[in-house]
């Protein structure tokens, strides 16, 4: 028996007897806050047997969102949690229910709980109200006299009816304009660590990921694109490939070649047997040294974009008061464990696409365009995502799959090799940073940060995103108002360095390097003026950013700052991202000249907490995801090609190098709802590098750490 978040078809869902659907729209303010207005028409249905199906607008990629969003709705619905099922909803339905401002359905930016908390609670309240009124009508009793409890409506005289029994009647009632809400003080699901609803499926092999989709008659495809970005297919010699048993066809497209076979292995072997002459194009000269040189040149550019400026210009700082250092981070790949894949089935009047995506709307639009069908005829199914981290916010491989399916006119599943995934990513951009501090009389009076690199929004499709006001500031996330620190003089600048490398949203996006730059450099300053790292931060936190103090102090207390075990050294970092604040204290020792991290203590303030266990899991995973790349991974370029190709040369963190992560939550139920999926990632690299400095006096200014320490580049 397979389980998957999309296992219930939309039509089956709507056709179910006794189904209650509740339409909801995102309030415009919420919609504006994320730049992409509301994408949903219906969030919940209840079947006659009480099964309560909640439609998640977000994709489940490990972050637990299908559990957390269901908790929010089920809370106001007063649902029987044991009967709740969650389905990631589809694009067309979203689209139809939305107003003219609609842009896209997206799971990203740690926005799911912040954006959907209120709409889902409202949907739950509306559904509960209709169920209560249905019972009131049935019993001829005033609705106000009835109560609910875990999926049952109670009459004061002892009669009761389950939600399943009432659902059909309730679905015929009009929704109230202002249905009564439960007082937050009586929450019984929200704020508790109910277990994720995907655990059984994920420990039994029953969970269906995109790669597990099986359609009768489905062929398998493997593809290869020009190893040089932007290059095209020249000549293809495919005799050897076609001779491999099981191979059905070799399909040549403008910029990639695909082999189609009965099963995937022959398709993959056939791709390797192709002799392709590529027209490499303009980027064949790209190499790592060139990238680095371009970034360094960016640091010296004349006209930066100024994102924040207070006090005196750094140009006027007395030279003897200036401390300066340059930093650099490499391109990184998302490398989700599930290699990219997409299954397409085109029929005369419809197109079904099964894909682990973070952007259903882009899939929908691409499918309509590729097939010539109307968007209403396209059905996007979202199985579980075997990791996303931002990679599945792109649509490149989906477009390949669609092109193959259009050519074949048969159901087909495209699956990339790991090598194709690593060599054709949308990478975390490489960035350089120049940090300057004005230090006078033992105090930090000014901070001047300039970051230089490429801008994801300049390259992202749809291009309308480029017009957003945040576009220019995107590479400076974490340096602007969210930064907790105040100085007499502040200047934050960004320089666009146009590079021919595809880039995208990688877990925590620009925070992944701005935190590394600033939190490392502050430590340099602390060392310079002889102040404890925590004490320096305490002194710099602005009064307007008081929440940061509590987070820092909790991490300091729980992480036993200043009292490491013998032979161990500590580092600390503090950073806000996506509306939540995280501080981390790292304890490590040096073994053979390399760091061995023993302990990570994290404190987080994400505002109201829907599920503490999910928060702890995401902070743990986010920190270790950051540690993975901070330690060892980087992408290099040579002759226009990505050098790395698989996990032997793009080394991810392994268990032996993964310390326990202790997560402590700052209770802040009245603050705005913050994100949680990406928050743990930014602080870890600087915290580790600060601890390495404490241990060795060596300052790592270029990631990843291990090659930097081995090569003396630090």
């Amino acid at each position, binding site marked *: 028996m397979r389980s998957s978040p999309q296992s219930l078809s939309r039509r089956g869902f709507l056709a179910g007897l006794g189904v209650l659907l509740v339409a909801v729209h995102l309030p415009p303010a919420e919609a504006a806050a994320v730049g992409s207005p509301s994408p949903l028409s219906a969030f919940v249905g209840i079947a006659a047997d009480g099964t309560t199906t909640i439609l998640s607008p977000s994709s489940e*990629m*490990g*972050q*637990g969102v299908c559990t957390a969003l269901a908790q929010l709705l089920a809370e106001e619905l007063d649902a029987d949690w044991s009967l709740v099922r969650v389905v990631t909803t589809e694009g067309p339905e979203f689209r139809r229910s939305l107003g003219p401002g609609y842009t896209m359905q997206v799971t990203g930016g740690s926005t799911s709980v912040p954006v959907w908390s209120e709409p889902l609670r409202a949907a739950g309240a509306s559904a509960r109200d209709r169920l209560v009124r249905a019972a009131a009508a049935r019993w001829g009793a005033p609705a106000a006299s009835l109560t609910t409890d875990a999926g049952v409506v109670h009459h004061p005289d002892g009669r009761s009816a389950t939600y399943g029994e009432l659902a059909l009647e309730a679905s015929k009632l009009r929704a109230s304009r202002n249905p009564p809400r439960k007082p937050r003080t009586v929450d019984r699901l929200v704020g508790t660590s109910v*277990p*994720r609803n*995907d*655990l*059984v*499926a*994920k*420990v*039994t*092999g*029953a*969970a269906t*990921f995109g*790669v*597990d989709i*099986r359609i009768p008659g489905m062929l*398998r495809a493997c593809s290869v694109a020009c190893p040089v970005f932007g290059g095209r297919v020249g000549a293809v010699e495919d005799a050897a490939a076609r001779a491999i*048993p099981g191979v059905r066809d070799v399909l040549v497209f403008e910029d990639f070649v695909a082999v189609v076979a*009965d*099963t*995937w*292995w*022959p398709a*993959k072997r056939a791709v390797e047997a192709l002799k392709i002459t590529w027209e490499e194009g303009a980027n064949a000269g790209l190499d790592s040294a060139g990238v680095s040189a371009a970034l360094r040149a960016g640091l010296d550019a004349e006209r930066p974009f100024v994102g924040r400026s207070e006090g005196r210009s750094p140009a006027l700082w007395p030279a003897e008061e200036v401390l300066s250092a340059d930093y650099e981070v490499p391109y990184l790949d998302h*490398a*989700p*464990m*599930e*290699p990219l894949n997409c299954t397409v089935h085109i029929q005369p009047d419809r197109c079904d696409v099964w894909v682990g995506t973070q952007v259903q709307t882009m899939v929908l639009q691409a499918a309509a365009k590729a097939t010539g069908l109307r968007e209403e005829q396209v059905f996007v199914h979202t199985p*579980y*995502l*075997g*990791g*996303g981290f931002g990679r599945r916010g792109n649509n490149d491989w989906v477009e390949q799959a669609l092109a193959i399916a259009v050519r074949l006119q048969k159901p087909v599943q495209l*699956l990339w090799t*790991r090598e194709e995934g690593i060599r054709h990513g949308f990478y975390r951009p490489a960035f350089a940073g120049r940090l300057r501090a004005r230090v006078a009389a033992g105090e930090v009076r000014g901070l001047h940060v300039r970051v230089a690199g490429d801008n994801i929004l300049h390259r992202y499709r749809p291009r309308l995103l480029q017009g957003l006001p945040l576009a220019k500031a995107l590479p400076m996330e974490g340096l602007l108002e969210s930064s907790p620190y105040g100085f007499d003089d502040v200047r934050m600048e960004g320089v666009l360095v146009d590079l021919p490398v595809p880039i995208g949203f990688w877990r925590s996006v620009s925070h992944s390097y701005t935190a590394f730059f600033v939190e490392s450099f502050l430590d340099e300053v602390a060392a310079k003026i002889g102040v404890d790292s925590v004490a320096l931060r305490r002194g710099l936190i602005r009064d307007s950013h008081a929440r940061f103090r509590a987070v820092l102090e909790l991490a300091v207390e729980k992480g036993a700052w200043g009292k490491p075990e013998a032979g161990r050294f500590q580092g600390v970092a503090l950073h806000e991202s996506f509306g939540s604040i995280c501080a981390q204290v790292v304890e490590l020792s040096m073994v053979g000249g390399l760091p061995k991290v023993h302990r990570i203590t994290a404190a987080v303030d994400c505002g109201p907490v829907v599920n503490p*266990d999910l928060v702890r*899991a995401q902070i*743990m*995973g986010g920190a*270790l*995801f950051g*540690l*993975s790349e901070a330690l060892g991974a980087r992408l290099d370029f040579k002759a226009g090609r990505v050098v790395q190709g*698989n*996990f*032997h040369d793009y080394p*991810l*963190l*392994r*268990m*032996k190098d*993964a*310390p*326990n*992560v202790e997560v402590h939550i700052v209770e802040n139920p009245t603050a705005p709802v913050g994100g949680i999926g990406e928050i743990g990632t930014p602080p870890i690299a600087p915290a580790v590098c600060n601890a390495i400095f404490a241990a060795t006096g060596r300052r790592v200014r270029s990631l990843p750490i291990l090659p930097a320490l081995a090569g003396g580049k630090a």
Partner: protein
Amino acid sequence: MKFTVNGKAVEVSATPDTPLLWVLRDHLDLTGTKFGCGLAQCGACTVHLDGRAIRSCVTPVVEVQGRTVRTIEGLAPEQGLHPVQTAWIEAGAPQCGYCQSGQIMSAVALLAAVPDPTDADIDAALSPNLCRCATYPRIRDAVHRAAARMRDAR
């Protein structure tokens, strides 16, 4: 090519050099065993061959002729879960879940060899299994819980 999978005799027409992984996934539709790298670098494809853990992505099916394969789908008894699976649920180990079949099959092999493993034993046994969500601390916890469950059951 004939062999036994999860107690059932199967016969497949794959060429002898086809990796067992693709025979399981594409010929037998046993999709619980996952493809992650194709180079035995990530462990997502771990299954048991005659009771020992192997990486099915680098094992040509010719090697398993006449032998016995167990996959994640065959780990639990007909009804219920294997104690390692129960422990995994208790620990809340999975996030995206893609690597977990391989992690669990490797953990079962560890516990067969070392019924009461230390943290160091777990790290040694499971470091070849990558988890991009980095749920490693919870997997470690889950293995300890599994060891305790299996000890209690003895």
